[in-house]
């Protein structure tokens, strides 16, 4: 085996990461060792997601890929190691600390720097660029400091109205500053969108509160009397007061090392490489933004990743070449969807443009097709980019059918159904073709989205192609005869969501009618509880009503949580975690009287374990008589609303989180759902209630509340995503009402909110447009349903205690109602009891038999 060769990568950005990852994945024989020289004091991170640093993500959450890459024995990451010179004759690189690194092959991946035009005053304190975590952290620190110093909202301006400029404007807003985008060109994002698109974009961006000034040149940044940034002076129309300025006027390749070592540079900079990413020196490659490939430098991640893959392939003896940059992009800026792909400006001779504009809805779409209107060449989508994932891979192929189907709002007319050619790229971030996704199904036996993602890496970066990946996978599974079944069980061929609609529309109210009409057989432990839950959600009738009891799952069946020995735990509701001392005493008294094991739950209430079936009514009678009610700890329903102590007591609280938590808990108590769900309310941004780990998290701001949705603990923890910001109480209730109603109606059986939200077609954006913008026109119905739920709420346990028929279900034995289950056995542990294990039972160490605990109040 040949000796291991040394590769030195200069630069520690995303493309350097991709190069290293690909090399380690493909160089299975260990032919190359890779040393990465990073200028920043950290491992490569997701620069594209930099703005999310403002929405609470920590630098480490921006980490790329599997961090164990850096522990690979053939990988060395040198942080804070800016390369300053290269000796091509000796084949060594020297860093700023004077350390030298010998190389057999050198990869230049130095990327770009943020370029700012020579405007007077651009060196004042308060002027920033937007490129690295440090830039962003400095900007954040400055804005926070200025807000404290000035005692008012900080006024921000971004110079540059391209993609990065809009990102920066969003970041300023996120920091609580106002922002104005100052654009020299006649429209925003002039490189990606045309005039029509630019107009739509300006309107949408201004709707988010960002001011837009196009056709404006900044002449000077002027200082205030303390020497900080104070105002912008424009070339033509006067001046604007500002406290902070961000330059987002483009990037330039960091090619100074290339220049120093005498490598040819492009006309507008960049180290010139051929289609294999090699420079003039066969021992040196250049990849990413610093490479001038096919005549230009490309500031996008997808072509950068492609170059990294090509460089690796070539070093390993492959023959791949750069196919030309796919400059297609789909972005979400300030919540506005923008996509541009292919020949977006119709430069192909004879190209035709089909446009659709709806200024009211803020949508602009354009398709560019060949002169015979058959082949798709490119397009621009602003405001609604839902068709992007389907359209982009079709560039160069026949559009099929009436292309107008892609322009009109979804569902207006049928979209042409075209099968993508195998070579069509589906995931541009990871360069995965339609054929590779098909292969994952046909050759590697993947049968679900998670499998295909793991197998191909498709959709693992930005995720925008996932709907398409799922569709291709579904079609392929179908072809292979593998049924993608969403049947509930052998008795119902439909999914829970379909069954929900069927039950709702048919207005059938009994299981026997429903199974006769929509299913077969007699039902089972899957469909019965599902229908029990659907009926409870729709009509809010008692879970143990007439023929309902037999449908309920284990816990709902007796309104308590069955434990491993068949006894139950009892949890009264403690709304928001606020509890009266007398209720605390009562719970303690009951636990003592019945010998129950007590534990504080994760949802800020108290659980009493070890109650037998026949003891439940008498325990609940004492709780209900004292004013407590069912906590639905047993239900697939609202469990708790956790809160911090809030502004009443806390020195930092900005809103009354306890009051809000109680209001929410009382509002949604008893709402039956596909899975349990929990809420949390934090009184300030410190987030002591851990609300973002809940299905719905509410966090106080100084202007109102932020609402986050889709957080889950459990097996697959997820942080909740921002749904709406700074809303008042009424809006908060309204959006949560609708979110929950949409969830309970359309989720699958046992599907929690996080996967539901992910699987929902169009994701959280689509959900937001349904419940905030009423895009489906169902909000009135959702509101009415929730109002019905709230108005018809009754305490289930109080109702049972008043009904002798239902109480009959709480007997131990039909022929010996008061006889405790003789098989129960307990041992003492830390002053309380717990079920005896099998060996404790057999060796006679059981201390407590159930009959000795028989206490009646």
């Amino acid at each position: 085996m040949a000796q291991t060769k040394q590769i030195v990568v200069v630069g520690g950005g995303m493309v350097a990461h991709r190069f290293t990852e690909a090399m380690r994945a493909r160089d299975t024989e260990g032919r190359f060792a890779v040393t990465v020289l990073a200028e920043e004091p950290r491992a490569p991170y997701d620069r594209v997601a930099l703005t999310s640093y403002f929405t609470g993500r920590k630098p480490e959450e921006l980490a790329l890929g599997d961090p164990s890459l850096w522990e690979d024995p053939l990988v060395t990451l040198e942080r804070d190691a800016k390369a300053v010179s290269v000796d091509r004759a000796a084949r060594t690189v020297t860093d700023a600390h004077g350390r030298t690194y010998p190389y057999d092959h050198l990869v230049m991946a130095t990327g770009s720097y943020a370029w700012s035009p020579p405007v007077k005053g651009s060196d004042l304190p308060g002027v920033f660029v937007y490129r690295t975590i440090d830039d962003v952290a400095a900007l954040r620190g400055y804005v926070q400091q200025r807000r404290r110093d000035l005692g008012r909202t900080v006024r921000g301006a971004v110079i540059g109205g391209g993609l990065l400029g809009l990102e920066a404007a969003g970041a300023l807003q996120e920091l609580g500053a106002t922002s104005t985008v100052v654009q020299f060109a006649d429209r925003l994002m002039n490189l990606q969108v045309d005039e029509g698109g630019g107009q739509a974009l300006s309107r949408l961006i201004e709707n988010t509160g960002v001011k837009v000034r196009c056709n404006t040149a900044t002449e000077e940044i002027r200082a205030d009397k303390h020497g900080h940034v104070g105002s912008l002076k424009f070339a033509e129309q006067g001046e604007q007061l500002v406290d902070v300025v961000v330059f987002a006027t483009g990037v330039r390749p960091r090619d100074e090392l290339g220049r120093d070592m005498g490598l040819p540079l492009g006309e507008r900079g960049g180290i010139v490489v051929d289609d294999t990413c090699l420079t003039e020196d066969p021992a040196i490659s250049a990849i990413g933004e610093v490479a001038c490939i096919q005549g230009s430098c490309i500031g996008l991640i997808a072509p950068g990743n492609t170059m990294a893959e090509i460089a690796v392939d070539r070093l390993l003896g492959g023959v791949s070449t750069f196919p030309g940059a796919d400059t297609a992009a789909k972005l979400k800026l300030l919540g506005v969807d923008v996509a541009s792909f292919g020949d977006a400006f119709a430069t192909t001779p004879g190209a035709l443009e089909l446009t659709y504009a709806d200024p009211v809805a803020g949508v602009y779409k354009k398709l560019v097709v060949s002169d015979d209107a058959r082949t798709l060449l490119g397009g621009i989508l602003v405001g609604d980019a839902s068709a992007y994932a389907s359209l982009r891979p079709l560039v160069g192929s026949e559009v099929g059918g009436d292309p107008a189907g892609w322009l009109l709002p979804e569902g207006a007319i049928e979209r042409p159904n075209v099968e993508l050619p195998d070579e069509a790229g589906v995931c541009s971030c990871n360069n995965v073709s339609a054929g590779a996704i098909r292969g994952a199904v046909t050759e590697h036996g993947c049968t679900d989205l998670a499998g295909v993602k793991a197998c191909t890496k498709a959709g693992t970066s930005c995720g925008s192609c996932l709907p398409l990946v799922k569709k291709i996978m579904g079609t392929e599974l179908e072809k292979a005869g593998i049924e993608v079944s969403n049947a509930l069980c052998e008795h119902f061929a439909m999914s829970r969501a379909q069954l929900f609609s069927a039950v709702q529309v048919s207005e059938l109210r009994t299981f026997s009618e429903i199974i006769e009409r929509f299913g077969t057989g007699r039902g089972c432990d899957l469909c019965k509880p599902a229908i029990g839950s659907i009926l409870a959600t729709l009509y809010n009738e008692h879970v143990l009503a007439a023929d309902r009891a037999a449908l309920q799952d284990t816990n709902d069946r007796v309104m308590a949580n069955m434990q491993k020995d068949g006894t139950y735990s009892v949890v009264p509701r403690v709304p928001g975690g606020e509890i009266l001392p007398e209720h605390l005493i009562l719970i303690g008294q009951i636990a003592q009287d019945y010998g129950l094991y007590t534990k504080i739950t994760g949802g800020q209430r108290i659980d009493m374990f070890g109650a037998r079936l026949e003891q439940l009514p008498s325990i609940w009678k004492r709780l209900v008589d004292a004013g407590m009610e069912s906590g639905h700890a047993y239900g697939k329903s609202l469990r708790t609303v956790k809160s911090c102590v809030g502004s009443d007591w806390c020195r930092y609280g900005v809103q009354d989180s306890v009051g809000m938590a109680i209001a929410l808990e009382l509002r949604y108590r008893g709402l039956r759902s596909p899975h349990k769900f929990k809420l949390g309310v934090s009184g300030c941004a410190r987030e002591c209630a851990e609300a973002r780990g809940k299905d719905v998290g509410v966090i106080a701001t100084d202007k109102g509340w932020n609402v986050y949705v889709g957080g889950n603990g459990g097996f697959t923890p997820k942080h909740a995503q921002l749904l709406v910001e700074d809303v008042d109480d009424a809006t908060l209730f309204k959006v949560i009402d609708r979110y929950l109603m949409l969830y309970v109606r359309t989720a699958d059986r046992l599907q929690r909110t996080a996967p539901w939200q992910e699987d929902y077609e169009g994701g959280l954006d689509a959900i937001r447009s349904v419940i905030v913008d009423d895009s489906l026109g169902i909000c009135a119905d959702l509101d009415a349903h929730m109002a019905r739920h709230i108005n018809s709420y009754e305490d289930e346990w109080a109702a049972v205690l008043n009904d002798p028929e239902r109480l009959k279900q709480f007997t131990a034995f039909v022929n010996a109602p008061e006889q405790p289950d003789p098989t129960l056995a307990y041992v003492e542990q830390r002053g309380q009891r717990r079920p005896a294990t099998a060996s404790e039972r057999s060796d006679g160490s059981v201390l407590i038999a159930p009959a000795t605990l028989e206490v009646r109040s």
Partner: protein
Amino acid sequence: MTTTASGVARDTTTVAVCAYDRLTPELGVAALVDGVQVAIFRLADGSVHAVQNLDPFSGASVMSRGITGDKAGEPTIASPIYKQVFSLLDGRCLATMDKEPAAGHEGRLTVHRVCVEDGQVRIALAEPAGP
């Protein structure tokens, strides 16, 4: 009306446990018969079935609190603890949910003979299953 299960029944006299009308369709009850716990189910078609109340997979006496149903037409009862499904006709386990029975237990239910006479549900115990 009489329903005879296929389990091996001892030739003993039957014991009355409750009135047939006390049973809610599809909702099980537990009964103590000579110290043995029995789960009794009246199904929607009027038939009555009795099996051991002990769930062999958890060791808890809870089968009467499971959900009734059918698997390809055969009447079933699902354990409320780990959801194994058993036939009400012969007690065999139709879905183990990838679990083994608890130590010392057989992975099936004993079926007891049950009949309805003069409006009373009567049980004849089969060979006892497990402890």
